[in-house]
């Protein structure tokens, strides 16, 4: 009873809270990093160096009036933000933050597929938000979003196949262990796949330069144009939670998860003094920073260019990568 129900529930509780807190502070991190990139200070008023801004923002959003447009589809309008947040949170159940059983809720033998499939549910939130708003810009945005997310999902899944081939398992813990055995992070074995997943991840999370569904200069905010208050905040939570998921997946698949650099080199054994989860979060942070950095730097793609990139560049490369990986796998 304790092992099967209480402990997992406790873990889930802790994880959920941790993720939500992390997400709120992600917004602060994003604002700060972008501010530094743009030679500004970012939020400075709430708390020392604006640290408490992350708490002030949600409070503000909760207190705001929650507006439902008169002609909106009320049920879907309410459901959409939830549908977009829940999958993003569910995914964390199979993300191992460390090698010890303490650091993950569960390790299922189809962990990676589980992540892919559950994140694919998140698209409903965006599509239904656009539809339920009964407004033209959100509708355009949701059409964009559905096409974009499905296209890039194909590209990312295809790419992950080659990683699965290399690792020989779908379990997230298993993949890290495979890296430990081979003594090499898969980022070095599968550099192409890494780049593809990173690009696809940007697109899957609607981050710049692929933030077309919420391009505020074109579609006035896209699918969440009509949203306000906490429902609007839920979309943001989902976006940042997805970002964290993607960085976690990239860390696990390509950069050895909680492993120290060169896990098999004995000379570097002193690095093991640093606990695994610190390595993990450190690596995640690097990628989160990269995501934010990219947003501060690059202009936005256009819809057709985005689709062209997805279908004509990423997917062929991903397939070629699978073939090459397969050939090596057979030969070696």
């Amino acid at each position, binding site marked *: 009873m304790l092992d099967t129900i209480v402990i997992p529930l406790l873990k889930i509780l802790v994880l959920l809270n941790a993720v939500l807190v992390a997400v709120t502070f992600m917004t602060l991190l994003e604002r700060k990093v*972008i501010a530094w*990139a*743009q*030679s*500004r200070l970012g939020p400075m008023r709430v708390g020392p160096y604006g640290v408490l801004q992350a708490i002030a923002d949600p409070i503000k959003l909760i207190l705001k009036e929650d507006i439902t447009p008169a002609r909106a589809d009320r049920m879907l309008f309410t459901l959409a933000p939830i549908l977009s947040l829940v999958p993003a949170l569910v995914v964390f159940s199979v993300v191992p933050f460390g090698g010890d059983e303490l650091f993950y809720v569960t390790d299922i033998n189809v962990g990676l597929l589980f992540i892919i499939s559950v994140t694919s549910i998140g698209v409903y939130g965006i599509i239904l938000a656009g539809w339920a708003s009964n407004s*033209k*810009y959100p509708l*355009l945005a949701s059409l*964009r979003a559905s096409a974009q997310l499905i296209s890039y999902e194909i590209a990312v899944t295809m790419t992950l196949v080659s990683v699965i081939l290399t690792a020989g398992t779908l379990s997230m813990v298993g993949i890290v262990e495979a890296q430990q055995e081979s003594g090499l992070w898969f980022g070095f074995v599968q550099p192409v796949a890494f780049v593809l997943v990173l690009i696809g991840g940007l697109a899957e999370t609607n981050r*710049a*330069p692929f*933030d*077309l569904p919420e*391009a*505020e*200069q*074109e*579609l*006035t905010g896209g699918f969440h144009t009509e949203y306000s208050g906490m429902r609007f905040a839920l979309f943001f939570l989902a976006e940042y939670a997805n970002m964290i998921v993607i960085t976690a997946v990239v860390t696990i698949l390509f950069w050895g998860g909680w492993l120290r650099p060169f896990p098999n080199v004995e000379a570097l054994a002193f690095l093991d003094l640093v606990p695994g989860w610190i390595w993990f979060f450190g690596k995640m942070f690097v990628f989160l920073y990269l995501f934010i950095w990219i*947003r*501060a*730097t*690059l*202009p*936005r*793609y*256009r*819809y*057709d*260019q985005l689709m062209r990139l997805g279908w004509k560049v990423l997917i062929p490369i991903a397939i070629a990568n699978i073939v090459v990986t397969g050939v090596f796998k057979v030969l070696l």
Partner: protein
Amino acid sequence: MTGQAAAAPIFDTDELVINMGPQHPSTHGVLRVVLRLDGERVVDADVVIGYIHRGIEKLCENRDWTQIILLTDRMDYVAAATNNLGYCETVEKLMEIEVPRRARYIRTILAELQRIASHCLWLGTHAMDIGAMTVFLYAFRERELILDLFEEYCGARLTYNSMRIGGLPLDIPTGWDVKVREFCKVMDEKVPEYEELLTNNRIWLERTRDIGVISAEDAIGLGLCGPPLRGSGVYRDVRKDEPYAAYDELEFDVPLGTRGDTYDRYLIRLEEFRQSIRLIRQALDGLPEGPVMGKVPRLIKPKAGETYHAIESPKGELGYFIVSDGRATNPYRMRVRPPSFCNLQGLRPLVVGHLVADVVALIGTIDIVLGEVDR
């Protein structure tokens, strides 16, 4: 969506009419563009303006000649000094007043500073529209320096009222020229910074190359002016063709485009940053001594007659057509030829056939200020 006649397209997605503006983040004010879309492709566009029409031309008929300078500030409010300059030059032409050389030089400096400020704003918003938000803040950072300079010169940061008929209200403050030189040095470093972020950026290239191409003939026919006209390769710069202020005594180049697309217009404006800095440096070097106010009658009352005079504002050819009846202390008719208005007219041919995302890029590339379009 309701009430469509049988003649309307049967498939709803075939044509979607969306109203871009008047409240929209990237229409640079209260521009409204009614887009007919086929999917995301623009089939037709109707540009609706007039949302901040304040009747400045009518107002001018009831203000005396000096008060009008103040009204011209409110047209292109991001380039008030060039508006002042155009108006003052026109009245001076009408009254045949000789402006002292020092005043003409300072006017040139102010106008070129204003051009840099206006282009900074353009660059920032244009890049922002295409999604590059850092450039926006970089450009505004430099614009702030110019506003500081203007503040020191005339006390205002946006609506300067910085010129008078016959010259300038005041000479430059002590040390101002040094600060302008320092600014030029800063700008020398910052322009490459913008270029680094955009010029060779692949996404920027894909978003701007071959977008909104307009041929030289079409550009002339549509009455485009300023960078959009030069982007199509037409050598037309009022500063060169019909020199005013001190431009005939200074050296500068007029950058020309070859393809007439959004990217060329971007390059031209970036080059104009450099040319403006060059002009400011020359004007500072050759700044003559002397008064800043010419011999102007106490009561400004031009003889009856009418004239058209144009200057090159940051947006293009800014013309004033003024009719004096010789009797009243206010113009009988004052007409402004707003460059933004004429350039905006080119928006429809530019956007048709492009995607929604390009519409914002094209609104950005023609560089409009709605205060000037609507007056």
